[in-house]
């Protein structure tokens, strides 16, 4: 009886979290467009609602009512499955994020690994969508997505192993708890933090590492043929991935919910917003590197640096314990 009640509670909480995440992703699209506009000395969307705040509602309504037109010769089941795969793993990844002490849907012991796995799963959506579209540009985008995944995943996981070593846990809540009193891990792991954020930009498929989308040379890459709600799901996945990477960065490196005066969830939200702002800022500034440049950087520079970081951290942690 109590077990089923607890299950029901988790279900309700999950539904609330899902709804909140959808709204947050929508608001984030509006915020991004406004910030990009301001950085380009224009105003951005300011027509719908106060300050254009309801622009994302209008966009959503537009996308839902649009026709969904799979191209002739497309692999329909795969074509329809791909956008779902883009959004679902990211939403699942939020299940282990600790928003405040005890504010976790699923308090997994291997939370970090779970989120890493969910982030990596999105590449299936890109490759599947690219393949199912039966479009040359889409296929090129899918190929790039696969190669880029191998490149950034190589150091994404390694860059945050230093944090796991110091905290002694894969549980996101325990990692945050280990940073109490302003001992943020970014102070002891600056290199790991920088590498993680670089890999995070690539993992969220954002400029400057959105080579699989790359509209200047690939039309829209893997989602060239997508329209309507399927297109919106890909976008939802991308924006949620930014928020997930930001949440992970806050949890691992910037002290999670810890902060003076304000309650924990507020601090968490503020920090995530700050990191998301940096993502937008980077998008507004940096040009997209060439394809081989990103792969070369990942394998030849970032991976050795992550390994050295892990080695030195492990040496200090084990040496300190001995």
């Amino acid at each position, binding site marked *: 009886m109590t077990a089923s009640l607890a299950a029901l509670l988790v279900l309700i909480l999950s539904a609330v979290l899902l709804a909140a995440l959808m709204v947050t992703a929508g608001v984030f699209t509006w915020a991004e467009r406004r910030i990009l506009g*301001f*950085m380009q*000395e*224009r*105003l951005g969307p300011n027509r719908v609602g106060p300050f254009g705040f309801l622009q994302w509602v209008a966009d959503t309504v537009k996308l839902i009512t649009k026709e969904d037109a799979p191209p002739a010769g497309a692999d329909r089941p795969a074509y329809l499955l791909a956008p779902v795969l883009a959004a679902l793993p990211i939403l699942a990844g939020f299940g282990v994020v600790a928003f405040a002490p005890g504010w976790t849907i699923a308090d997994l012991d291997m939370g970090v690994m779970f989120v890493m796995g969910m982030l990596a799963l999105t590449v299936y959506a890109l490759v599947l969508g690219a393949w199912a579209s039966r479009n040359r540009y889409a296929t090129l985008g899918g190929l790039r997505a696969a190669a880029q995944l191998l490149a950034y995943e190589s150091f994404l996981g390694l860059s945050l192993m230093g944090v796991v070593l110091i905290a002694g846990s894969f549980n996101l809540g325990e990692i945050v708890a280990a940073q109490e009193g302003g001992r943020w891990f970014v102070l002891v792991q600056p290199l790991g933090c920088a590498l993680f954020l670089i890999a995070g930009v690539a993992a969220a498929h954002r400029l400057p590492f959105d080579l699989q989308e790359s509209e200047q040379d690939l039309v829209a890459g893997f989602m060239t043929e997508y329209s309507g709600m399927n297109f919106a799901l890909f976008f939802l996945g991308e924006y949620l991935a930014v928020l997930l990477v930001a949440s992970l960065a806050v949890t691992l490196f910037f002290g999670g919910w810890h902060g003076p005066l304000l309650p924990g969830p507020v601090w968490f939200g503020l920090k995530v917003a700050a990191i998301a702002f940096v993502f937008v800022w*980077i998008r*507004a*500034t940096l040009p997209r590197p060439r394809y081989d440049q990103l792969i070369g950087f990942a394998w030849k520079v970032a991976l050795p640096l992550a390994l050295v970081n892990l080695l030195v951290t492990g040496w200090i942690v084990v040496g300190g314990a001995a």
Partner: protein
Amino acid sequence: MKGLLKSLWEVGSKLWEPKYTAGYPEVKPDLPPRYRARIVLTRDPDGGERCVACNLCAVACPVDCIDVVKAETEDGRWYPETFRINFARCIFCGYCEEACPTAAIQLTPDFELADYARPGLVYEKEDLLIAGEGKVAGYRYWDVAGKAIAGKDKGAARAEAAPVDLKDLTP
């Protein structure tokens, strides 16, 4: 690396710089008086129509958007019975204004002509006529024209010489 940080700073500092976006529906643009937009028919200082239905504007129009039907008063003055401009066709080139011998047809800086239906863009004479004289003040065609009308004989116009009697040889 230094270049990346400098770019980030330069782009980020644009956040608080003034924006170039014109807040159009709320903030109206400041257009010069010779801006070419909505076409009007002006009146002379007495309030009479300036247009003499000469059709020169319709001939000059490169897109054939002007349609004039001539009528005549009892004392011999021409006037347009109907004067129609199709603004769906008009390209606002201003040739009609240049062709007009009586300064009747003029272009104004009012550019807000949008409509939901095409028929709404066809303006009739009563839509085009305005109360004032437009850009040319104090001009009245019949004061300077050589044509005789009621109350003004040949040679009575401003700066017009008296008519020459061709049958008479004396200078």
